[in-house]
């Protein structure tokens, strides 16, 4: 060790712990799902689903990080925290991940805009699916128009969340 003060600086040849590498993405998604514990008593579905946003960000940022089955445990946790019928996000998130895998094989060019397009489609699919599941499990007559604002600003929020995810990711892989 040449200079003990240099210890916190990322350096070649040192690796972050396995827990940090694998655990950080999972923990951030779970924290995103737990946004509903904020003391806001909402009168309408206004809060963007941060769990879904973070999961999509990690998936599009780091395609090699997760296998598709990660949607099952993360979705289950989101269902428990969100108040949706249990199994709804479990199904929707996993189907979304499988869908992204399928689309990725067919796309020749990929950039930031394509990522946003994929995320927008996934967000609309998941929110609309959530409405459908809430309706068939005794939710009464819920109109799709009710979640239109939520869909809109969830899609608009995606670039911001991706940036924050990238910031966390650069910390994650640094030793």
């Amino acid at each position, binding site marked *: 060790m040449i200079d003990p003060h240099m210890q916190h600086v990322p350096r070649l040849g040192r690796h972050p712990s396995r827990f940090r590498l694998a655990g950080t993405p999972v923990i951030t998604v779970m924290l995103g799902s*737990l*946004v*509903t*514990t*904020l*003391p*806001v*008593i*909402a*009168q*309408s*579905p*206004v809060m*963007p*689903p*941060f769990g879904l946003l973070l999961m999509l960000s990690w998936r599009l940022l780091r*395609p*090699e990080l997760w*296998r*598709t*089955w990660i*949607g*099952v445990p993360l*979705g*289950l946790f989101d269902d*428990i*925290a*969100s*108040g*949706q*019928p*249990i*199994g*709804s*996000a*479990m*199904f*929707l998130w*996993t*189907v979304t991940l*499988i869908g992204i*895998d399928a689309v*990725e*094989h067919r*796309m020749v*060019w*990929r950039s930031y805009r394509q990522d946003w397009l994929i995320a927008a489609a996934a967000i609309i699919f998941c929110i609309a699916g*959530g409405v459908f599941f*809430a309706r*068939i*499990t*005794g*939710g*009464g*007559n*819920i*109109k799709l128009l*009710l*979640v239109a604002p*939520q869909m809109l600003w969830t899609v608009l929020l995606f670039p911001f969340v991706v940036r924050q995810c990238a910031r966390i990711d650069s910390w994650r892989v640094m030793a």
Partner: protein
Amino acid sequence: MARPPSRRPGHNRKAQYSLFASYVVAMTGAAVGLLLVVVAIFDPTGFAAIRIATAEVTRPASLTLKNMVSGVASVDEVLASFWRAGSQNVALRRQVENDRNRIIEAKAVAQENLRLKKLLKLVEDDGSELLTARLIASSSSSTRRYARLNAGRWQGVRPGMPVRAPEGLIGRIHITTPNTAEVLLLTDTSNIVPVRRANDSVPAISTGLGDGTLEIRALAAGRNPFKPGDLLVTSGIGGVYQPNIPVAVIVRIEGEIAYGVPLANPSKVDAVVVERSFEETVTRSDANAPVEPPIQPEAGANASVDAPPP
């Protein structure tokens, strides 16, 4: 930018199998999820036990945050009132002048009431109030409207109990855990409340719309009897809610449907009161009547128009 590296593992047989297995696991998980949803169609509160752990673990966090930022929900209102400060000030002052006389009259009436009740030896306390607690969180990203209450089974809260604020009805208890309970808010699309017009008892059914408003349908056939400004209170039919709890005020009429706004805003009320279900209170006060089991929290159970047992 070219697409990211393909996930296809090439000729490595082991990697191929591993990828295939991951898809099988994912498909199975998705199918299990779908199955759970199908189960929830028939038994909406069936998996309540799974939620207990999260509700209990996150309760201290929600409670602390609630204590710190209790005013955050009314930010929009504060801004709006700054905007209209001058004209509002004049209007409010006039209103106060008008109200002063009314308050004096009301005090006199209250005193007279007290005197008359003493004459009749009536007991005011009906024992329906169970406890007072605060709403600490809600299902803000879901289309269902649930709020989490900071009191649960250990405090005596049971599913089906009505929840109200001083201003009006909030909803009823949906699921209980040891220290928290989920409240099905009045504005949830599956919450049906039997109501009546306050001044002439026209019966109606109120259903939530999920966006903070209510849909009011009159039970009588024919022309819509409501007009904007009508006040609705609970009718006590069905046996869940006490009669005469304020519910909503009608703001808009569209054909046969009237739209109302709840009088109690769950994001602004300080504390809510959990009450015993009306039927329970009625049957308990009568010593000779057999005690009825509490109402099951079925969706729309309180919409049935049975009169409470005598």
